[in-house]
């Protein structure tokens, strides 16, 4: 039992730092942070990752991935988060790609994977529906086979970045006769197909990232179906496990917590730094201690995977605890910003507003409420853990 880094790991760490230092510039960070230029910023960042060969580190090498060890992936992720660089947008490179690689045919791999690697296609995820949230398998969007085309009718909701997307991967119903998990099919749909409309949904964080996507007699060629008809639930489930691991965002929370400490240190109440306030220190260290535990829960899961074993039962906690920690940090940062947390910066600069993170403090608090809802709500995660881990 040990967690020492080897010589190779340390050399790798140095390489990652050097890359981030060069590729993740302040200018690019600003482009990504501005909502009007976010998409071009993220795509530019992803192109730099692609050029380095690191756009899809978890893919098989033959498709453009890397042969990183689990420790190397861990190091990369820590360094990336520590530098403040974002992960690649997950819908393409992480989510649909892993289904295409796992269950797609050779034509689909050749058609879609290179475009994802080069950030030529932006993907979104069509799972939830107005009537199917936590009970995802209750989805009703219909796909009727007519010749060599499916005809799609129905609606998807909470579709993040559908307004930017070129493609959407969807779970649709092709059969109503059996259990609700049966009769679900996994389809790839071009967002430019006639009959697809996107309705924006404004959210409590003063941002537009969610949408409702309507399908009105949308015709999708059969060749865009992944795997077999009626097996979509199985394919989607494999993805949910992966999603659960990535939602924990341990490395990003570490960076947020470090920033939060410095922000609190700079705030002064009647001559005393907020950091010296015992009530505040208690809240901050509660979070830090939970995060230190979660970091090793994640390492334990990664170490199992590295040995070719299934991650242990502890991995079921990653999404649950990871999002609780994210929300606790967001709440505390809002409190650190005090009355400034209620200000809207609009077109003002931070200097004009008089505060450099307040604008984001309350927004990120509200945006962050979503993390205990998406990817299977935290209550559903508890149901899953009770059933599959505790055997209840």
């Amino acid at each position, binding site marked *: 039992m040990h967690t020492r880094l080897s010589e190779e790991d340390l050399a790798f760490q140095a390489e990652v730092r050097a890359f981030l230092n060069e590729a993740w510039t302040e200018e690019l960070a600003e482009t990504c942070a501005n909502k009007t230029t976010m998409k071009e910023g993220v795509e530019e960042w992803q192109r730099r990752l692609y050029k380095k060969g690191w756009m899809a580190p978890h893919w098989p090498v033959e498709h453009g991935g890397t042969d990183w060890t689990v420790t190397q992936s861990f190091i990369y992720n820590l360094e990336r988060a520590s530098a403040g660089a974002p992960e690649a947008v997950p819908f393409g490179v992480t989510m649909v790609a892993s289904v295409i690689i796992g269950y797609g045919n050779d034509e689909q791999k050749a058609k879609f994977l290179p475009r994802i690697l080069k950030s030529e296609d932006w993907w979104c995820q069509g799972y939830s529906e107005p009537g199917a949230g936590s009970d995802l398998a209750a989805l009703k969007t219909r796909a009727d086979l007519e010749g060599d085309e499916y005809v799609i009718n129905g609606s998807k909701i909470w579709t993040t970045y559908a307004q930017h997307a070129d493609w959407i991967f969807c779970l649709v119903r092709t059969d109503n006769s059996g259990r609700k998990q049966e009769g679900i099919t996994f389809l790839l749909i071009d967002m430019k197909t006639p009959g697809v409309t996107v309705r924006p949904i404004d959210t409590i964080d003063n941002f537009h990232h969610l949408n409702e996507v309507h399908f009105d007699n949308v015709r999708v060629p059969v060749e865009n179906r992944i795997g077999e008809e009626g097996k979509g639930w199985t394919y989607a489930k494999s993805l949910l496990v992966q999603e659960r691991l990535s939602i924990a965002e341990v*490395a990003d929370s570490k960076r947020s917590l470090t920033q939060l*400490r410095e922000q609190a240190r700079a705030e002064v109440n009647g001559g005393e730094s907020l950091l010296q306030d015992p009530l505040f220190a208690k809240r901050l260290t509660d979070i830090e*201690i939970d995060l*230190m535990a*979660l970091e090793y829960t994640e390492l334990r899961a990664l170490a199992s995977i*590295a040995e070719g074993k299934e991650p242990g039962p502890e991995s079921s906690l990653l999404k649950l605890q990871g999002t609780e920690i994210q929300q606790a940090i967001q709440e505390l940062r809002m409190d650190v910003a005090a009355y400034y947390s209620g200000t809207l910066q609009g077109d003002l600069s931070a200097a004009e507003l008089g505060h450099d993170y307040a604008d984001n403090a309350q927004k990120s608090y509200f945006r962050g409420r979503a993390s205990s809802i998406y990817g299977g709500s935290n209550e559903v995660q508890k149901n899953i853990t*009770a059933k599959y881990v505790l055997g209840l």
Partner: protein
Amino acid sequence: MNFNLSEEQNQIRDSIARFVQEHYSFEQRNAVVAQEHGFSAQHWQQFAELGWLSIPFAEEFDGFGGGPVDTMVLMQEFGRGLVAEPYLATVLMFGGLLQAGATEAIKTEYIPRIISGELHGAFAYLERQSRYVMTDITTSAKKTGSDWVLNGQKSVVLNGAAADKLIVAARSAGEQADESGITLFLVDAAAEGVERTAYRMTDGQEAANISFNNVTPEAVIGNEGEGYALMAPVVDAARLAVSANALGAMETLNAQTLEYCKTREQFGVAIGSFQALQHRMVDTFGACENVKSLLYRAVCAAQDNDEDARRSLLALKVMVGRAGKLIGGEAIQLHGGMGMTDELSVGFFVKRLMIINTLFGDADYHQKLFAELVNAPVSAADASNAVAA
């Protein structure tokens, strides 16, 4: 990076698990605790024969030369069975202090006797006023010529009544809570002027208040006035050890509660089918995994003498206290009326967890130390964090 045990460590684990299986049923444990001093001398001899008493000692004194992972494995398995023998007091603390600071002559004389099971020891450092501040010492050590004389009172000395020898922390210089000016002394428990008042703790173990009235010690352990530097790492190792012990107890307690919820029926169904109870058991499962993760983290850091070691250890002890109360409280609640009785082992596990919370400082005390470390004006913790990151 890996979290696997070595073959030897697996053997230690398996042999203790077998021992617990054979000798530590609920009824057997009650009988052990009812004996004089709260443990079985026969078991202690068995520990010696199986080599468990030698684990943390260096090979030159017939020891096994084990490290933090070995101790963790052993204490965790002990925790699963609530093993009552005073391994912590005699081997880890008394033995640990001897190994850290005694002269070669004393080590050669005493350590083999600990390993063979002949000698019991205890570390007397706490006093009535000290609460968790182990430097808060008023027991005095005065030197006349080359002879020392000890006067004062020590409280809640674990295994204090069964011990043949004591190590006593006394103030030879400085102010009441100073780190410097503390000297450690080896004292024969039967020496003139040593008076012991023994009592039981709620987890069944025996402790004692000990008064020292013009006592002549046998020897000084380590350098005069520099006792704190010897105590601190031994107490840190003991913090790791009791945390591992707590993890073993939590795992068993959670497993018992889970089993109860699967078999106990009300309203015609197993109570484990109720969502309100399921979510609570997920919470206690999560608390237990948090302890395990921080234990692995702190043990690996201690083993590698990593810069993260102190921060991880403090975080661990906070989590052990917090999780122990959650898991213990839920175990009683979910067992309902049966959880209130002495007819099940539930209450005994909970009491052990409550005692462990207080050992070497409770969760709040450790969280205060943690906050001081990580929020320090020039944050060394952040700097080390950045390196680790």
